[in-house]
Each structure stands twice: as C-alpha cells, then as structure tokens.
C-alpha cells in the first residue's frame, strides 16, 4: 500500500478575503483517491461575503470600514445591474438571430406558408419586446442609460436587424428610427401620469442595426434569385442602392464599427447588383420559367462564383 500526499497550492484571494486550501491526497489503498477541499478564514479580515449566511461581523470596523461598506453596496448594485442587463442583452441577440433565420426560409415557400412564417416572426418579436427588452427598460428606469449602453448595445442592434428585416418583408420599406424607439417604449395607455420606461435607442445603434440588415437583404435577394422571385430581387437592389447613397452622404464616418460594416455592405451591394445584371441579361435569352433553374446553384455566401 502506497500513500502519498500532494499538497496542491494555497490560493489566497485577498479581494474576497478568503483562503482556499486545496489538497489532494492520493491514497493508493484499494485504489481510493480522496480530494479534500476546505476554506480557511484569514484572521483579522472579513469573511468572503459571498459565503456568509449571517451578516458580516462589523464589531471590529474602523470608521473608514463602515464608510466603505456603504460604498461597497452602491458599487455592487451598479455592477450587478450591468451584469443583468448584459445577460438579458445576450438573450435578445440569440432570439433575434433565430427570428432572422426563420425569415430567411421564406424564399420558395407558398403564399400561405410565407404568411405563417411572417406572423410567427411578428409574434416572436413582440415576445422579445415584452419580456427581454421590457426587462432591460425596467432596469434602466431612473438611471442614466448611457452608463449601461455598452451592456445592451449589441443586443439592440441584433434586434433592430430582425425587426427591420421583418418590416421590410411586410412593407418593402425600411423602418424609421422613431418607430423602433416607439416599440421599445413601454407605458400603459391609460396611465398618462406615469413616465413611460424605455430602452434608449441612439441614432448610432439604429444605423448600425440597419447596416447589418443590408447583409440579410443580400442573402434574401440571392435566395429569391434561385427560387424565381425576380421582382423582389430588383426591389431589394433598389433599396440597397438608396441605403448606400445614404451612407455615402455621411461623409467621414467617425465610428470604426460603422466603417467596417460599410465595407461589408459594399460587397453585399456588388453581389446584388451583379445578380440583377445577370437576371436582366438572362431574361432576354431564356423563358421566365427556366430562369429559376439557371440560378438555382448559386450560393449567396460564395465569393468566387460568377454569374455570367
């Protein structure tokens, strides 16, 4: 029988004022391995608050420490709120992406199926608003939203992408900033004295969300080509050209994320323009019913495929 003890390490995390002694003793006796872990309180310093089931012992506090207990509470409240908003924002991102995927299945579906997908997406969007986004709005009530905007900005952008995509499929126009903000402002109609809570959508978030939309429109357009909905293809090309003009009108763009998205948008726009160009050429050569077959093999995300 061989016994040997391996003491791993003594880890002290002074921030939490607690010590972990992790030791593993391998007892090779009938192949039993025992790992022991215990916590040790460092004398003179407060026990880690996360473990305390009773309120911490404040009898040895200096006046400075009493003061800092108050600061600690305020700091934690702010950090916890930030964390909660961030986590909710991640959920918004996931749900929004799912909605976008479902909408991308539309090309090629029959009219009634298409209607179902749109309705179901509308319901999902409303659900995201009423649960997740409303939750963020409640966290932001009475706070300066700019303090927390980095926590929710990516979720909001993804949501705007999904919302505007759905809106476009219904109306063939781009949703406005005011309408987006309207959907993220929650106040009862009958309680006019209560200030409505909302998730602040800055112009920047709106523009970034719209920029992402261009990528989805490009993919949708290419799918339309391979399923035969050529009219939609031209419509999308038109809208994208207008948006491109809009971006150009901004001149020098100070935000680097916007700059990057512009680059991606440009390549999306070129793909769509080439698709329309090819369609136009083929229309003159081939009867309409066969055009779908000609383009069926095209893959929207393949960089190397040329149409003509």
């Amino acid at each position, binding site marked *: 029988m061989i016994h040997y003890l391996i003491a791993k390490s003594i880890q002290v995390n*002074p921030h939490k004022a607690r010590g972990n002694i992790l030791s593993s003793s391998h007892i090779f006796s009938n192949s039993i391995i025992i790992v022991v872990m215990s916590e040790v309180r460092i004398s003179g310093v*407060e026990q880690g608050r996360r473990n305390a089931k009773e309120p911490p012992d404040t009898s040895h506090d*200096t006046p400075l420490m009493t*003061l800092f207990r108050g600061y600690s509470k305020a700091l934690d409240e702010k950090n916890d709120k930030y964390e909660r908003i961030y986590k909710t924002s991640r959920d918004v991102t996931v749900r929004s992406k799912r909605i976008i995927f479902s909408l991308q299945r539309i090309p090629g579906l029959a009219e009634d199926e298409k209607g179902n997908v749109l309705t179901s997406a509308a319901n999902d969007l409303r659900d995201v608003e009423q649960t997740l986004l409303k939750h963020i709005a409640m966290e932001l009530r*009475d706070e300066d939203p*700019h303090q927390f905007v980095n926590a929710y900005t990516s979720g909001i952008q993804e949501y705007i992408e999904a919302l505007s995509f759905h809106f476009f499929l219904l109306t063939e126009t781009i949703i406005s900033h005011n309408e987006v903000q309207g959907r993220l402002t929650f106040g009862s109609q009958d309680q006019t004295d209560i200030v409505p809570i909302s998730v602040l959508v800055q112009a920047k978030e709106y523009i970034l969300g719209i920029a992402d939309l261009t990528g989805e429109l490009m993919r949708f357009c290419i799918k339309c080509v391979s399923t035969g909905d050529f009219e939609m293809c031209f419509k999308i090309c038109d809208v994208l050209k207008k948006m491109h003009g809009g971006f150009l009108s901004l001149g020098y763009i100070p935000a680097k994320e916007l700059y990057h998205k512009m680059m991606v948008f440009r390549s999306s726009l070129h793909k769509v323009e080439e698709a329309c160009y090819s369609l136009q050429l083929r229309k003159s050569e081939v009867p309409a019913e066969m055009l779908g077959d000609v383009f069926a093999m095209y893959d929207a995300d393949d960089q190397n495929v040329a149409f003509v």
Partner: protein
Amino acid sequence: MDITEAFSTYGSCVERETEVRESVQAAVRDLEKTSYTISTILEKMHNAEGIQNLQTICSDCHAELARVPALYEALQERVPFGEFYRYHHNFRGTTQRLVGATCLIVYLEENRLPPHEEVAKSLGLCTQREKGFHLDLEDYLQGTLSISHELSRLAINSVSAGDYSRPFQIRQFLRDLHSAYSLLFPKNELRKKFDELKYSLKKTEEVVYNLSLRGLKPQDTETSG
C-alpha cells in the same frame, strides 16, 4: 419612409455630438491645467525641504483647489442635461486626478482619508446623479487609490530626509485603506488600482522594517499594526 432622411438625421446627430464633445474637451483642458499645477506643488513634498514645509505646500494647493468648483460649473454647462455618462469618459481621468490630489492634501494635513461627500464638496460637486453634476463613486474610489503610490514614495523620501516617524504613519494609513478596500468587490480598472495599493503597502512595510531593524524607530510612534 425615405431612407435618405434617416441618414441625414443621423449625420446631424453625429455633428451635434462632435460639437458638444469638443466643447466639453475645451472645458476639461482648463481643469487639467489646474490639476497639473496642483500635482507640481504636491511634488515638492518629496524634497527634504518640502517635508519640513508641508503647511506651505498644502495652503498653496488650497489656493489652486479653490478655482476648481467654478471650472466644474463651466464644464457642467456644456454637458446636456441627463447625458452625464455620455461624455463621462472625456473628464473621468481629470476628475480622478483631482480626487487623488484632494485626498493627498487632507492626508498631509489631518492624516485621514476624506469620504466621498467631502471630496465632492471641495470640488464643487454633489454625490448623487439626480441632484446634478456629481462625483461618480468609482471615480472617487479610483482617485483615492492613486495616492497609495505617492505615499509609498513619500515614505522612502522621508527616510532620506531624516524623518523616521512618517513611514510608520503612512504604513498605518495604508493598512487602514487596505482593509477598507478589501470590503469591496472591484471590477476591471478599480481592481488593477487595488493591486497597486497592495504593492505600495508592501513597499512601505519594507521601509518600516528597515528602520526597525536598525533601531531607528522613533520612541513615540505606535508599534502595533
């Protein structure tokens, strides 16, 4: 809805924000000048003559500090109401430096750490966002931590200047600061600054050790810690 309208609205938003930001930065530059002037005055405390003349240094600093509330008021006028945190990163560093300077002066005069409200008041700020332009709690905490480096330096220079009691006083002060800060759960930058505090405390304890070893500990200084 016309797309181009959305973009022109965004364009004018960006322009407006750039204007506000530049105006904020101009106001911050004035605050910066004062903050560096105070730092220059405080630097004298590390000289041998300075250590004997802390009173003068502190009163010179007070003269400069007196100008700060007006400068913050000028800054406040340029930040649109309700957008404190939108432009906060433009003046956060300066505020922390001013907080650090204020804490250092109070330590030199009274050997204590001024609380959040006191520092805010001397800078002409309030402590709660709802009441107006305020001193953000994290700015206060970070600014306060920045003095630990200066104090450990002062401990070393005090010894060089022949003042053997100050290192003990500094050690006690830093220990109290450390136990207070240990009650927090800091994140990111605050956590880095907290690590610097530990390092400064360690250096100061080494200074005290070197003094004690050579029997240079003054008789009337407290021995426990």
